[in-house]
């Protein structure tokens, strides 16, 4: 494919990102992760494995938790995408962020945006999750630093905080 045909293969993609309407010109098979990071400057989602194993590129796509490295941008056309940067107004964010800091849930921090999105997604569905719920809810997010224990603790604490709020 010569450069001009690569350009012509690009399509206009319209979607909502963190509540704002966005339009980008991209090849339909470009990864949502690359469009978020390179075209829109949203670097909170990270690439860990590029094959949907580690969850560090997790974002919410129409309220579903997805690995953005596996989503062709064409699939996001017309959808609503929320990244860690767009979560600040979410009522769960403050309790989650504070609990992560207090409990040691973030060490190197590279899995943390994905981990916090997964935790928020879980707490949106379950008011009072058990440890088993938390383990399952975070099963798609790998962390190499913590051994997960302090992350479980942080999520449980955030859930309790919300209940008492």
């Amino acid at each position: 494919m010569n450069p001009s045909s690569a350009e012509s293969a690009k399509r206009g993609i319209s979607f909502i990102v963190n509540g704002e309407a966005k339009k980008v010109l991209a090849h339909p098979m470009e990864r949502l992760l690359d469009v978020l990071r390179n075209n829109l400057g949203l670097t909170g989602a990270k690439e860990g494995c590029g094959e949907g194993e580690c969850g560090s590129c997790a974002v919410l796509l129409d309220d579903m938790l997805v690995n953005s490295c596996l989503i062709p941008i064409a699939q996001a056309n017309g959808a609503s995408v929320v990244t860690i940067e767009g979560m600040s107004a979410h009522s769960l964010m403050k309790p989650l962020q504070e609990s992560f800091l207090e409990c040691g849930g973030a060490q190197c921090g590279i899995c943390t945006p994905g981990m916090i999105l997964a935790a928020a997604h879980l707490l949106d569905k379950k008011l009072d999750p058990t440890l088993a719920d938390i383990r399952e809810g975070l099963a798609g997010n790998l962390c190499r630093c913590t051994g997960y224990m302090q992350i479980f603790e942080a999520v449980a604490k955030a859930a309790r905080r919300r209940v008492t709020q």
Partner: protein
Amino acid sequence: MPRKEGWDKVTGAARYVDDMALPGMLHGATVRSTIARGKIKQIHFGPGVDWNEYVVVSAKDIPGKNCIALILDDQPCLASEFVNHPEEPILLLAHPDRPKLRKAVEAVSIEYDSLPALHTIEESERQSTIIWGRDNTFKNFLVEKGDVDAIWKKAAHIVEGEYFTGAQEQLYIENNGVIAAFDPKNGVTVWGSLQCPYYVHKALITLFALPEEKVRVVQMETGGAFGGKEEYPSMIAGHAALLAMKSGRPVKIVYDRMEDMAATTKRHPSRTRHRTAVSKDGRILGGEIEFTIDGGAYATLSSVVLSRGTIHAGGAYYWPNVRIRTKAVATNAPPHGAFRGFGAPQSLFAMERHMDRIAQVVGISPVEVRRRNFLKSGQTTTTEQTIKENIDLDRLLKRALELSDYAAKKKRFAEKNKAGTNRKGIGIAAFLHGAGFTGSGERYLNSLVGAEAGADGIVRVLVSSAEFGQGTNTVLCQIAAEALGLPYENVSIAQPDTSVVPNSGPTVASRTAMIVGKLVQSAARGIKETLTKTGLLHEDYSPEQFRAACKEYIATHGALKSYARYEAPPDVFWDDEKYRGEAYAAFAWAVYVAEVTVDLTTYSVTVDDFVALQEVGRVLHPVLAEGQITGGVAQAIGFALYENVVWQDGRMMNNQMTNYIMPASMDLPPIRVFFEENGNVHGAHGAKGIGELPMDGPAPAILNAVEDATGVRFCSIPLLPEDLFEALRPEFNEQAVPSSVRGIA
């Protein structure tokens, strides 16, 4: 105390190298060897690629010495004539459009004359071909204490065993990456994901033949390292900087996962042989230990990894007589390198499995054999270092057994295992980990630390010690704040940047809290002394008074800085020739207990409960300390049960997270962490190293538990379901001895 850089991490604002872009930046990629060993005959740039669009760098473009300067300088930055392992870098390409690089890398084809290659320790030892030096050996050590040859005839039992550990990938979630810029006036600047800014600095000075001040290395937020970003960043930084020099534009190289796993370092595979003379009542009279590690194709850090493995080989026990022979050998795999524990998890795996073997032969319990052989204060280690600390390993063991409910469980499991399709077991490991560089290492490093107070009364810590999750920023700020009597918020830490911070040494060897922490304490005290000596500050000051004093001092005298340099404790003696003396300024001590279930239907092992009890001196920050232990235990559970590097002709075949399995949230037991506190004279506020210790104990504790559950003596890790299947199926037992239980003679 919250983690200093924590807020940026939980909001996604923290900046890692791949989050950064410079104007006009190109992307770089590496063309690598496809064979294990051979002579490069010809390089073809294939059709279908407009090569004019690409910047191409080969070894000829290197202005200085073509090596990654580290210890022996034997590893080239780019292979020019010969390749010695798969994935060895040969050419570098750069292009503005990252996706276009993959196709270009594939379009380069290289013709080789293949040479015979070596892929195991045994092949390397046989020396059918010599691939490194005179005898394929990077380094060997001999430790001798007492008279081993005289003890065999006094022994009631002679217990032998052979133990193996596999390679392990560090698997930091952020892959290796750097950005480099070059200009003829200022030289090279590199921003990267790295542990040791001054290692990269030294390597670039050599590669570019530039003076010190023309190389600048900046550590970005680093998404995990575990040793995997100790020496390798010098390589990738050299590559990006060469492309930047040739193109005149900044160049980013960020590996994808497959390249990172295939091409960068892993934990050294090892083999350990024990032959131990034991008395009738289970006391070690003496023994021989042979410890061998596979270093891969170049020397890199293997000699230092071997050193730590050597010194830890005798474990937490008293050996009246011992001979430890160790060596690091060459094979045609990518060089193995630093990984949390650094040789100790390998030799301690063998020691702690062997203790259970000794117990069986003598006919006493695993608990009793350890109790009878524990080191005590006043006794000497294998290198004849007298234990001056007040240690009580009996008490540590007793507490670990209580915390894990060991005795009751052991009894209950033995009863339960008579029926059903599951077998339960419980196992222990007792061990030690030396903190700081080995022997005279800290003396050579000669670390320097600074502190600088601003007119706003904020004190900034100046160190090259890097934060990569362990809590360096937080703990060092905490130590400085405590030394100054200031709130934690009034202390900050500089981003490690070689143009700003002095060389406080590499961020390795569990040395940061203990060694660098102590220097931070001294530097911070220096600021306070300067202010009190000039009469600007009096005892019992408030932060406001401190601020006023700083402001006045700076207005009158200029910058308010204080530096502290490492001074070796006077009573530390080490003989590098005989490998004898004070190997470490302090040891951390631990007893771990693992409880497992072996499923006789799936042949999988599940760890059900894990107790980690350790004595690490004063615990500076309980949340961070606990996080170091749980994280280390999790990695070590992976090392024991999941993480299998599949090799073929020196290349990792399963270089993906899909088929190289690390523990996920569903895979781990509750990891219950406990500390015994004990003061230590050398460290800051009595702290000892902590980061590597938890990597040492879990694997042997788990395999001891598996043996307790099944009665089968596995001596090799990772222990996979297929190994259990072979060993536990009766029809297999009657056939040849399975490879996984090698060592049962």
